[in-house]
Each structure stands twice: as C-alpha cells, then as structure tokens.
C-alpha cells in the first residue's frame, strides 16, 4: 500500500483501472480519459457506483471533421465536491453510434437528445431519441462542421465583405428565399405530419387508461403561447381527472443555434452573445464564458477585477432570486402586483449595471483577463447603500409577506417533490438541487475566482418541494447579500485587466470547461480551441435546460393547477433553455 493520500480534490487516474479499457487523453491541451464505445456503460456504472461520480453534469459532442471522428464528451462529478472527471468516446463520423447513458443517469436524457439533434450522434438504447431543439422536419444536423446555415457567408467572422470592400445591403438579398432552405427528401409541407408529435400524443394517451371502468385520459397542451410558461414553452400532459399522469415538455421554440453562432464568432465577439442566454442574469453568463476562455489562455484577472466580477455575479443572483419570488406570487395567482415589487428592486440593481457596463440587461461587461472598465465614480457608494440598507430590508419584507402566508404554504408545501436521489440523477443543479437536501454549490465544491476566500454558507433544505425551493432562494439571496457586504468592504484598488486589451486574443489549442454557480444552477461552457481566432466547438451546459428534465417527476401525480407552480419554481429562462 502506498502512503499517498487520496482526497476528493483529486481525480483518480482511472487509466490504471479497467484492464486497459480506459486510456488517458494525451492530446496537448486536453485532459481526461478516452474509453471505447463498447466499454462505456461498464466504466460509467463502475464510476458511479464504486468511485462516487454520481453526478453526470454535461454530455456533448464535438465534430472533428478533419480526423473524421465524432467525440462524445462526458463531465462527471462527485456531489461531495471536487473537479470533473472527463470521459470521451470517439466514434467514426459516418456511423456515430454510442450507447446511451439514460438508464444510469436521467440527466443524459435531454442532453443526448440534443447531441442527436444538433450533431447526429445516435445514442443506442435511448427510449425517446427525438429531435429536441430544432423542429421535426429539419434537414441535417446543424452543428456538424459541414452543415451550412441559410445565410451562410463564410466559415468564420470577421467576414471579408465588410472591410475593405464594404458591400452594403441586406444579407438576405444575396441569398433569396427558397434557394437557401433545405428540406428532408420527400418532404411536402402540405401533407407532412410529424411522426414524433404523433408518437408523443400516442404515448400520452396510452398511460393511465383504466380498461375496467373504460375511462380515458385527456391530453392537454399547455403552451406554447401561455402566460404561465414564462416564454414559448409547451407541455403535453395527460390528465386523469385533475391529476397529471403524464407530462412531457416540448422546447426549442426560441432556438437560434447559439452554439453555431459561437463557432462562427471570434472569442471576444461571442461575449455579447452570452448575455442573451439567460437574459435575467447576463453578468453570470459572462462570468462562465470568461472563466472557460481564461482557463485555456492560462491567465488570471487582477484582484480588483475578481472583486468586481464577484460583486456583479452576486448582485445578479440576488436580483434573479427576488425576481423568482415575484413570479412565484404570479404563478400562485396574485397577478402582477407583487411582481412589480420584485421589479422595483431589480430596477435599482439594473441602474448599477447600466452605470457600470452601459446596458441594463445585455451587459457585455467581462473581458478575458478582467472587466471592460473600472467602476465609475459613485457606483460603489450606491452599491453600499443597497447592500447595507435596502436589500436586507426588502428580503425581510418578502419573507414576512410570503413565508407565513397560508395560501402560499398550502399551495407550496408538499407540491412537486423531488427527492435527493432523483435530483442528483436528473442532473438538477442550483437551488433545485439544494432544496432537495444536496448541499452542492460550485462556489464551494469546485471554487473559482475569490469564492474560497469569502465567508458564506451553502444553503440547503430537505423537503424538495416548491416551498423549500422558495426558502432556498430566499436564504441564498441573504447569503448573496452577505458576500456583497464583504466584497464592497474589501474591494482593493488596482488594475482591472491583465495585459493589454486586445480585440483578437490568442487562445492556445486545447479544451476547457468553465463552470460557475449561476443563479439558476450550474452554467458550464465547454470550449475546444484549435489555436485559431474562433473556437472549434463551443457548448453551453445551461442550467434551465437540464433542470427541466426534473419537471415530469415533479408534476406526475399532482394536480394540473400545480404544474404552473412547479414550472415557476424550477425557475427557467427560455433564452437559455432553447439557446
């Protein structure tokens, strides 16, 4: 026996185990392990059950066109903390077939569907491998490197036509409609009926039928245009009386292929696009993306910039949670008066964002190695007034109005229960996971920036129902307040940028995964660089999207009226779900 101590903070070298079925990824700039497709299930099962990697956070694919390979990348974590174990499976591009992890991790469900939809990787054994983000009549798999969008101009920005030629005009005039749209072979828009939709309705009708009493279930579409869905989002539910027996979310109505846009962009150009993911908390999105690219570049922002970043991220968290209380009220039926109370508080924080970054919602404030500009004069005093005076007071007001309110308690307690096992298995993150009794917070589990030096508690509640999700957010907002008080007290003077600001950053070849504890959960950016000015692969592990996997578990067996409440308590933003 060796004397070496094995701690949680280390990833075991599993290439020594599994009889050579796993090899270390030795490509420069890469980390993790490569496993053959035939051994994947066995290795992952052992990792989950024997090694404690019980949380499958991210599943995505990378199209290595020049090598003719398709790679599936898995990020596994321990819910007791520590860095990621990265597993990769390489398959030929033309016949990309990988066994599905659906039976081991339900969090693979939607992510594998996404990888199938966008990259055309077939997951064998997945029970419901439909397209998820694009529509069913879509031709091709858009994230494959040889797929070109309708208004394709060049592989990467900047486009040569802009300078020095300067050909003005509308981009679509170069590419008239009808010439640029592809359909699957044999597709006729007039007679076409989506097989996937048919299958969805058929499976909804099948469940809950009582042969003896000859009762039938009723299939109801909630959405896509419905005020309770917080955007364009649809749920297909089968009802037995008032009880939900089946519920499947249908997403993708707001899909714009953010990731393809990201691969066309240069690294810096992509920063303002990340604002548009979760548009309620754009500063956190900036944070995750900046971390991922900084990891690749190997740079560290200066101290003052770190403090400013954390300040912005925590203001965002506070604002997001207060916003979610407003929506909780709304979803409970007190239409929009209390929502305005939440918006008031948000408005004051948006004033700060506007003064600092120039925009209220689309902040575009972080840069690689720092932030765009220093805090203007007077902003810090304004933040101090807020965090020491107004914000704690307002949280207490909300606490008083909601926590003891009998209507809130009767509706929320015991509604939409998600157990700890289910939450982990479904890949839930953020307040959804912590309300189920799993004290997992990336700021503590895998600290980034200056969070390891700050004093705050990981909030955890144990019932896993809507009320605990609300309490978790409330306590978390208080913790955010606590962090903010430390930050505004300790913020040092100094530079806000490492190196000179450059519009074209040099990013060495390799891969990186930057993840932050965004207000809604784990926000991860997986980036593959080939050393060129544009990322080869840019993937967003968005918390709203993966948290929605749990929605069916929350709603099944409950009343149809509670579906609205459950959805509100998951706290989604469709800009991030559909990307």
């Amino acid at each position: 026996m060796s004397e070496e101590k094995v701690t949680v903070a280390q990833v075991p070298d599993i290439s020594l185990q599994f009889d050579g079925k796993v090899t270390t990824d030795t490509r420069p700039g890469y980390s993790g392990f490569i496993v053959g497709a035939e051994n994947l299930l066995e290795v992952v099962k052992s990792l989950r059950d024997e090694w404690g990697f019980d949380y499958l956070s991210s599943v995505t694919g990378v199209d290595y066109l020049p090598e003719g390979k398709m790679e599936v990348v898995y990020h596994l974590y321990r819910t007791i903390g520590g860095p990621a174990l990265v597993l990769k499976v390489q398959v030929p591009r033309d016949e990309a077939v990988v066994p599905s992890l659906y039976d081991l991790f339900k969090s693979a469900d939607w992510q594998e569907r996404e990888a199938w939809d966008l990259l055309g990787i077939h997951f064998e054994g997945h029970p419901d491998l439909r397209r998820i983000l694009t529509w069913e009549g879509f031709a091709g798999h858009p994230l494959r490197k040889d797929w070109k969008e309708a208004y394709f101009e060049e592989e990467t920005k900047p486009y040569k036509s802009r300078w020095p030629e300067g050909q003005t005009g509308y981009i679509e005039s170069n590419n008239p409609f009808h010439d640029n749209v592809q359909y699957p072979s044999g597709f006729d828009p007039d007679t076409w009926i989506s097989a996937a939709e048919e299958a969805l309705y058929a499976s909804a009708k099948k469940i809950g039928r009582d042969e003896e009493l000859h009762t039938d279930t009723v299939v109801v579409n909630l959405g896509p245009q419905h005020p309770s869905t917080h955007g364009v989002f649809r749920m297909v539910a089968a009802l037995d009386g008032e009880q939900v027996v089946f519920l499947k979310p249908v997403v993708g109505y707001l899909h714009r292929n953010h990731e393809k846009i990201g691969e066309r962009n240069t690294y810096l150009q992509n920063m303002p696009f990340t604002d548009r993911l979760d548009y309620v908390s754009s500063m956190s999105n900036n944070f995750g993306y900046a971390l991922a690219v900084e990891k690749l570049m190997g740079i560290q922002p200066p101290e003052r910039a770190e403090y400013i970043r954390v300040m912005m991220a925590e203001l965002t968290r506070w604002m997001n949670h207060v916003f979610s209380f407003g929506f909780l009220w709304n979803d409970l039926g007190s239409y929009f008066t209390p929502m305005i109370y939440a918006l008031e508080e948000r408005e004051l924080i948006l004033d700060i964002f506007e003064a600092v970054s120039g925009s209220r919602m689309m902040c575009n404030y972080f840069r690689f190695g720092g932030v765009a500009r220093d805090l203007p004069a007077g902003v810090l005093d304004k933040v101090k007034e807020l965090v020491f005076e107004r914000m704690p007071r307002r949280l207490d007001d909300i606490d008083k109005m909601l926590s003891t309110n009998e209507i809130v308690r009767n509706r929320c307690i015991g509604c939409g229960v998600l157990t700890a096992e289910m939450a982990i298995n479904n890949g839930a993150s953020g307040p959804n996971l912590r309300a189920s009794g799993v004290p997992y917070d990336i700021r503590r589990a895998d600290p980034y920036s200056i969070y390891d030096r700050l004093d705050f508690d990981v909030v955890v509640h144990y019932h896993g129902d809507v009320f605990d999700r609300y309490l978790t957010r409330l306590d978390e907002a208080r913790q955010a307040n606590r962090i903010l008080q430390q930050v505004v007290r300790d913020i040092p003077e100094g530079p806000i940028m490492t190196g000179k600001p450059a519009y074209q950053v040099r990013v060495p070849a390799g891969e990186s995964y930057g993840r932050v504890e965004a207000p809604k959960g784990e926000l991860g950016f997986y980036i593959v660089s080939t050393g060129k000015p544009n990322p080869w692969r840019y993937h967003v592990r968005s918390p709203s999207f993966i948290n929605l996997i749990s929605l069916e578990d929350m709603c099944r067996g409950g009343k149809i009226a509670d579906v609205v409440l459950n959805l509100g308590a998951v706290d989604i933003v469709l800009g991030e779900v559909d990307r």
Partner: protein
Amino acid sequence: MTGKGFLSMLFGVFKRFVMTYVEDFRKGKDRYYTAEGIESRRKADVDGIFTIQYPEEKLPVPEEFRFLPFLVYEEGENGEKDLRCTSCGICAKVCPPQCIWIVRTNDPVTGKPIPEPKEFYIDVDICMNCGLCAEYCPFDAIKMDHDYEIASYTREGNIYGIERLSKPLSYYSGIRPTNFAAEEIARQEKEAMKAAAKKPAAPVEGA
C-alpha cells in the same frame, strides 16, 4: 391555519398603497416632471410610486450608456469636418453581428489607400449595441451614442451612412465628459512621449 400570515401579506400590500400617497403628499409637486423628482425616485431609499412617465419624463442615462455607434469628427477652422476615422477596419473586424461596412479611400493618382473612409455604413437593425467597436477603436473615432429615440418609417432608413453617423467632437465631450477628459490626457501623454523620444534622436543626427 389562522389566516394571520395572509393578513400580514395584505397589510404589506396596503402599506405600499398608502405609502404612494404619503410620499406624494410629503414631496409635493416636485416629485413628478422635474429632474430632482426623477432622481429621488431612483434612490435606494425610495418608497411610493417608482415608475417614470415616459415620454413626458425621461430617465437620465449614465455616462457609460451605449446605444448605436457614431463617428466623431473634429471641426476645422473653416467649419470643415475632419473625421477621426482612418478606415483601419478594426471596428468592422470586432463587430459581433458584422453590421459595419467600410470602403477605404484610394488616392486617385497613386492608387494607395488614404486614411479616411470613402463610405461607412452601419445597419442599425443588426447592431446589438455591444460597444466593442468603440472599446477597441485605436483612434477614439467611433463612440457609442446616448440617443435612443431613432424610430424610422422605412427599413432603408435604418442603414446609416457617413452623413447620419458623423457627430462633432463637442457632442461627444458633452455626453461623455469623464471618458473624453481621460482620453485627452492619454493623448497628451502619448504626444509628450513621442516628442521626448524624438528629442534625443535629433542631436545624435546632428552630431
């Protein structure tokens, strides 16, 4: 289940309702349609009515506020417009939605490029107001505007040419005084450095 919690919520709503009148009464007429009134409704200790009655009232925008780029020109002695832009193309290259089009000027005799733009277009339908062009312009020639009321009746009206984009330096220094002052200081320092670098070189040549 006593209903006490519910009543306390109703009380909270009622308190807010009453506060709107109390605040209006306390501050009087000055609370609305005056600059101080608007400012007082954005403070951290605000109570009562919060909203701004646009368009009669307008929120003042902070200096860093960014909405659509414009080109800065310096006014010559005879009133001619001297654009700072050298058509280097950095803004067009950094622009995320690629909404900037630039045509360089070529000398009609030699055919060599002259550092001023012949044409400069921004499609403001596409512009996402990210401000990267202004941030990375090495000549401080393109800046973000504060004017957000720009509706037009036609789509063609939303492709801005050089005429529409050009605004005088005095306008820029008016909307962004702090930035302008900092840039002027940096510029003077740079020129002083250049002059200092040149000075020792001259005697060497002379010697």
